[in-house]
């Protein structure tokens, strides 16, 4: 995407933002609260029309594509969750096939494979609302998988999870992206996590992308102090590593 600006309630939230993510790559978008990360994401999955600039996926302006076609290219795992009605996990996952013609047997097969892949193979008939936070996010990742897109967007996928489940979901998504050659763009809060997981890091501040590139080059103490107003110190600290085994 390039030169994207977006307005909400008449206020400019995002100004001429530009970033790119390639296939198989995991990119993270970080920045202080209210800097416009989610707004920027919303312009990519068409919840918001940018007031200027271009969002392209596979070379086409997504805002000019038919709705179904843009949904075949970009999937989203957001925080908003279908909790009011009692959909089963299988029904939630099959929603990922909404932009495609329905082929019951094949769709069922895709659903089973996706649930298996995210480690929820026994949960097909469970009610989504009764899942734990980590399971809900994995179910939404399964939904994104059956959507078979080139780009996966994650809007704070780990915000309600404990540290173990945060690592689980990030590992899962990174593996899937690499496996399927899918481009992944995630809004993350935790700078350490972002630095550890992503191939490319974008930092946003006051509606602008202020830095982008490999995390070790981007996350300098000067930048962090400028953007977040905190001092970054290098020190030995506890690092959480996922133990072996399934997700």
């Amino acid at each position, binding site marked *: 995407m390039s030169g994207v600006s977006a307005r*909400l*309630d*008449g206020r400019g939230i995002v100004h001429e933002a530009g970033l790119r993510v390639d296939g198989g790559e995991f990119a993270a978008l970080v920045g202080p609260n209210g800097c416009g990360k989610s707004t920027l994401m*919303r312009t990519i*999955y*068409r*919840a918001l029309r940018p007031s200027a600039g271009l969002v392209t996926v596979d070379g086409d302006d997504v805002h000019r594509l038919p*709705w*179904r*076609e*843009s*949904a*075949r290219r*970009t*999937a*989203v795992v*957001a925080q*908003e*969750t*279908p909790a*009011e*009605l*009692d*959909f*089963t996990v*299988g*029904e*939630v996952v099959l*929603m*990922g*096939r*909404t*932009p495609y013609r*329905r082929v*019951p047997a094949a769709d*069922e097969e895709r*659903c*089973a494979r996706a*649930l298996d892949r995210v480690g929820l*193979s026994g949960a*097909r*008939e*469970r009610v989504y*609302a009764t899942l734990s936070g980590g399971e809900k996010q994995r179910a939404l990742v399964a939904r994104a998988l059956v*959507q078979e897109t080139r780009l996966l*967007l994650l809007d704070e996928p780990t915000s309600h999870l404990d540290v173990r489940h945060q690592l689980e979901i990030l590992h899962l998504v990174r593996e899937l992206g690499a496996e399927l050659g899918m481009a992944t763009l995630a809004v993350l809060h935790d700078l350490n996590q972002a630095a550890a997981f992503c191939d490319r890091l974008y930092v946003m501040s006051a509606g602008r992308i202020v830095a982008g590139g490999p995390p070790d080059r981007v996350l300098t103490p000067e930048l962090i102090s400028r953007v977040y107003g905190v001092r970054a110190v290098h020190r030995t600290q506890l690092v959480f590593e996922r133990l072996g085994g399934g997700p």
Partner: protein
Amino acid sequence: MTAATTPAQAPGRRRARYLALVAGLAVAVLASTWLAVSIGAVHVALPQAWGIVADRLAPGLFPRTWTPVQEQIVWEFRLPRALLALLVGAGLAVVGAVLQALVRNPLADPFLLGVSSGASFGAVLVLILGAGALGGLSLSGAAFAGSLLALGLVYALAQRAGRITPSRLVLAGVALAYLFQALYSFVLQQAQSGRAAQQVLFWLMGSLGGARWHMLPLPAAVLGAGLAYLLTRHRPLNALAAGEESAVSLGVNVPRLRVTLFVLTSLLVGVLVATSGAIAFVGLIAPHAARLLVGADHGRVLPVTALLGAAFLQLVDVAARTVSAPQELALSIVTALFGVPFFLWLLRRRSAERAVSVA
């Protein structure tokens, strides 16, 4: 889950259960209709009621064991009334299911969103002031205009910068429902003739007493077309029920779908209110009962909701005619007797769920 099932088996078994349920409900609809045609001030035995209807459809097939009076009562009054009960029950139930998905609030129904009140307001204007008052609009036309106006206003009030939160929508709906009720009460108070006002009041509480054959085609056509359209859109409806932004990211043209659903539900409510008055609670109870039976998927919820609503209103109408015969009860009185306890149970159940999920 009690029984271990492989993923491949489960959908097949669910499908068989679903088909059995639909067949059972279809039988219930037929049976309740048969009962409705037979019961009343002039008793017509069940076989005779069947014979009268069958004789009209295929003359000469059955020996005539009934009197001409019985035939007239069944064919001219009870059958059209029973069929209208099915249409209205199914229609209100489907509207309830769609609105609940649309505003993502399981408590939504045509009443809560002010749609019924808007339709009633339009209808009262025509009934009291005559068709001339609204530029020659018919009763259905005025009821439709009223419901569209109400839904449009609710929608406009509930949105800020193109985004709608369900809670704002429900609050706006409740407020407008009161406004429209005040408006038509005002018109009623100002009405010259006390008798006309009395009639309107009875009609507002819901009654199928005026049913005749000529009143059936319009609601039948609107319901049939509406239901057929909704069934082709059940996947976008599911996506919408899961959240607006999710629906967008799943390729649903949300603004267009929303407008279509608003117009469709207004049209249905308008047509139904014009024929039978405002009948409460059907649109709330039937979708919930359907979801308890088949889950949240609209491909199943919609047909089951329609059948449940039809059978329910048929039985309600039978009760309304017989409980204090020869006087007829307004339908909303009877539906409220079932509906209010159900509503309270639903609230308790939901708050209990919330408490658990917080704990």
